[in-house]
C-alpha cells in the first residue's frame, strides 16, 4: 500500500497505490513549500510504515482551493529527515505527531515534544515499545526573569469540560506565552480503525469527537464509498447535509451561549443553552440520538424522513430560529458584552495562514477556508452555502462568524426541506477496491475534517488517518493568548472551542 507519488484528486476520489518509492525529499519539500506559498493548505502530513526498507513514507495532502482538488505527495524517508517546520510553520504539529508516533525525527524542528503522550507505534507491525511516556512530563517552555511567574491549569478543570493542561508564562495578569499540552483523552481510535475491519469502526468514528459525530461519520463514510465506488442516493446526501447543518447550528448556538456565560452575561447564556438542546432534539427526531449517532452509515443514511417528520422539522425549525436569533441579538446589542469580545485574542490573517488555521477560527481571521464551497462534496455540490468571513480575528470576529453561519444554516436546512429528492434506495453493500488511497474532506462545524485511508491487497482497510480541525487550531489558541490578560483565557478558549478528544484521538 505504497502511497501515490504525486497525484491530484477530487475530494473523495481514489488513487491507485504506486509501486515506486516516491519523489525525492528535496522535491517533496519544494512542492510543499511552493504549494503553501501559492495559498494551498496542508490538510494532512503523516507517515505510512513500510517494511521494505528501514524507514517509512512521508505523505502530505495539500488542499488546493484554486483548482478545487487535493494533491497527495509521497516520498521515502529514513529514521530522520530535515524538518519542514522552519519553512512551513503549518507542519509544526504534524511533525511532532510523526516523531511521537513513529520515532522518525524531523531534524531541526524547533519544538520537538510529544503532543499526545501516546505509546510509540511500531514500524514493523510488531508489539510497540513498552516504554510508555508519562503524560504531561516534558520540557515546557519557560520565560525567565524577575516577576515572571508560571500558572499551570489542568488537566482537571473547574468546569464541566474535557481534560487538558495549560501553562501560562505571566507577568502579573498579562500572558507572555501559553503552552498547551494535551493527550489526556487519547484512546487510540486512529490505530483501531487502521487495523482492519472491526465491527465497531463506525462507532469509533462516531465517538471520535462526540460533538462532531456527523462531520466525522460523513468523512468516514465517504472514504469507504470512494474505495467501494458506491454513490449514496441524492436523498441520502440531502439528509446528511441536513444533519451536518443541524450539528453546526447546535454547536454554534451553544458556543455563543457559552461565550456569553464566560463573560457572565446571564440572559444569552441561558437562552442559547436551551436552544442548543432544542436543535439537538431535532437531530434526535431524525435518528433517535441527539448527537446523530447511527444516522450516517456507509452507502447512505440509517434513517429517512417521512412526510410528517418533514413538516414537523420545518415547524420546529421556525420556532427555534425565532428564539435563537432574538437570543443572539441580545448578545450583540449589550455594550458590556461587546466590550469583552472586542479586540480580545487576535490572530492576524497572515499568522492564521502561516500556522494553517481552519474552520471558524480561520474564517474569523479573514481566510475564506470552507470545504463546503472549496471542495464541495455530497449535496453541497448542488446547494451552495455562502462562506462567512470576518477580518479582525478576535473573539468578536469568531462570535460574528458563528452568528452569520447560524443564519446561513437555518436558510440551508429550510431550502433542503422544501425540495428533498424523492428516490429512496437502501445503502449498497460495500466491497472496497484493493490497493487504493483516498482522501476525504468534510466541513465539520469546527472546520476542515480530513480522513485519509488506504486498502491492502485484499481490499481491507490497512491504514487510516484522521485530522480533526482542532489539530490545526490548538496552536492558534496559544498564539491568540500572547499579550492578553490571563483572565480572558476562558473566553478565548471558548471562542475557538476546540476538541480535546478530536485532537487526542
Amino acid at each position, binding site marked *: 500500500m505504497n502511497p501515490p507519488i504525486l497525484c491530484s484528486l477530487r475530494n473523495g476520489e481514489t488513487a491507485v497505490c504506486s509501486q515506486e518509492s516516491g519523489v525525492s525529499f528535496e522535491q517533496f519539500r519544494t512542492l510543499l513549500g511552493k504549494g503553501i506559498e501559492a495559498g494551498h493548505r496542508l490538510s494532512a502530513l503523516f507517515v505510512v510504515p513500510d517494511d521494505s526498507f528501514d524507514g517509512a513514507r512521508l505523505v502530505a495532502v495539500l488542499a488546493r482551493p484554486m483548482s478545487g482538488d487535493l494533491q497527495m505527495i509521497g516520498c521515502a524517508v529514513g529514521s530522520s529527515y530535515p524538518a519542514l517546520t522552519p519553512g512551513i510553520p503549518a507542519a509544526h504539529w504534524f511533525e511532532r505527531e510523526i516523531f511521537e508516533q513513529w520515532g522518525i525525527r524531523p531534524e531541526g524542528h524547533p519544538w520537538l515534544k510529544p503532543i499526545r*503522550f501516546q505509546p510509540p507505534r511500531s514500524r514493523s507491525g510488531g508489539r510497540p515499545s513498552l516504554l*510508555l511516556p508519562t*503524560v504531561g512530563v516534558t520540557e515546557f517552555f519557560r520565560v525567565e526573569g524577575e516577576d515572571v511567574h508560571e500558572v499551570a491549569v489542568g*488537566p*482537571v478543570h*473547574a*468546569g*464541566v*469540560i*474535557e*481534560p487538558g493542561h495549560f501553562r501560562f508564562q505571566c507577568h502579573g495578569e498579562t500572558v507572555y506565552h501559553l503552552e498547551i499540552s494535551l*493527550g*489526556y*483523552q*487519547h*484512546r487510540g481510535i486512529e490505530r483501531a480503525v487502521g487495523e482492519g475491519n*472491526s*465491527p*465497531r469502526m*463506525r*462507532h469509533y468514528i462516531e*465517538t*471520535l*469527537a*462526540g*460533538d462532531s*459525530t456527523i462531520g466525522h461519520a460523513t468523512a468516514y463514510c465517504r472514504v469507504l464509498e470512494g474505495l467501494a465506488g458506491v454513490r449514496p442516493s441524492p436523498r441520502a446526501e440531502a439528509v446528511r447535509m441536513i444533519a451536518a447543518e443541524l450539528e453546526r447550528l447546535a454547536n454554534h448556538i*451553544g458556543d455563543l451561549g457559552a461565550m456569553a456565560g464566560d463573560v457572565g452575561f446571564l*440572559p444569552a447564556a*441561558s*437562552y442559547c*443553552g*436551551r436552544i*442548543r*438542546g432544542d436543535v*439537538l*432534539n431535532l437531530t*434526535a*427526531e*431524525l*435518528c*433517535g*440520538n*441527539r*448527537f446523530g*449517532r*447511527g444516522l450516517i452509515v456507509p452507502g447512505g443514511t440509517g*434513517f429517512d424522513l417521512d412526510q410528517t*417528520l418533514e413538516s414537523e422539522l420545518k415547524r420546529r425549525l421556525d420556532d427555534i430560529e425565532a*428564539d435563537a436569533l*432574538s*437570543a443572539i*441579538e*441580545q448578545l450583540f*446589542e449589550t455594550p458590556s458584552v461587546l466590550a469583552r469580545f472586542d479586540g480580545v485574542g487576535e490572530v492576524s490573517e497572515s499568522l492564521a495562514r502561516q500556522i494553517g488555521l481552519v474552520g471558524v477560527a480561520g474564517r474569523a481571521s479573514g481566510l475564506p477556508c470552507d470545504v463546503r464551497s472549496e471542495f464541495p462534496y455530497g449535496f453541497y455540490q448542488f446547494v451552495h452555502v455562502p462562506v462567512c468571513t470576518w477580518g479582525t480575528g478576535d473573539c468578536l470576529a469568531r462570535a460574528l462568524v458563528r452568528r452569520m453561519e447560524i443564519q446561513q444554516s437555518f436558510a440551508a436546512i429550510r431550502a433542503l426541506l422544501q425540495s428533498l429528492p424523492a428516490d429512496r434506495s437502501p445503502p449498497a453493500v460495500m466491497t472496497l477496491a484493493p490497493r487504493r488511497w483516498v482522501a476525504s474532506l468534510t466541513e465539520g462545524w469546527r472546520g476542515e475534517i480530513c480522513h485519509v485511508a488506504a486498502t491492502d491487497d485484499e481490499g481491507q482497510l490497512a491504514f487510516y488517518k484522521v485530522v480533526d480541525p482542532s489539530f490545526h487550531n490548538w496552536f492558534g489558541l496559544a498564539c491568540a493568548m500572547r499579550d492578553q490578560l490571563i483572565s480572558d483565557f476562558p473566553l478565548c478558549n471558548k471562542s475557538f472551542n476546540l*476538541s*480535546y*478528544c478530536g485532537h487526542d484521538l
Partner: protein
Amino acid sequence: MFDILKARLKQKYRTLSYPKGPPPPLPARFAGRPVIGGRPCDTRCRRCADACPVGALQREEGQFPTLDTGKCLFCRECPGVCPTGAISFTREFRLAASSRERLTVTADSQGIPPVRHEIAATIFRRSLKLRQVSAGGCNACEADTNVLTTLAWDIGRFGIQFVASPRHADGLLITGPVTRNMQLALKKPTTRYRLRNS
C-alpha cells in the same frame, strides 16, 4: 434593562414540569431500555450476538441472551436481525443502576432497577454538589451534563449543582472509560475524599 425584559418575555419560562408533571415527549426514534423475551427465542440461533459490535449480547446455549447495557451502544442492530423479535428496545429512559451487574438485562429482568440510596437520600436530599471529571469520553457526556443545568432541565431546582473544586463537592461524576493518561489525574482528586458523618 427594558430590552432584557422584552427578550425574557419572548423567551418565556422554560423549565420542564417533570418530575412532578409528565416527562417531555421523547423523539419517535428514541431507543431506551432493551427488553429480552416476551417472544420465543430459537436457542441455537446466534444472529443477535454476532451482530453486536461490542459484544454486549451474551448467548448461552439453550437460554435467552443477556444484554449488558453498560457496554451496549444502543445501535439497534440486534432487534433488526432477530428472527422472532425476542429483543426489542422500549421507550423507557430510566437506564441507571446502582451496581454494575444491574446494568445487564436478562429475560427475567422486571421493570427498572432501584437506584435509591438511603443515606445519600437523607444527607443530600436538598443539597448535592458534584464535581465532574472527564476521562476519555467523546465530549458528548460533558455536553449533555451541561444540558442538565440549562433552563429546561434546571437541576439546580433540586439543590444539585456542579462545583469548581473537589473540596466543595459531595460526589464525583466521572465520564468516559478512563484513559491511561487520565489515571493519575483522576486518582489525585478522588483519594482526598472523606466524609465525616456518613
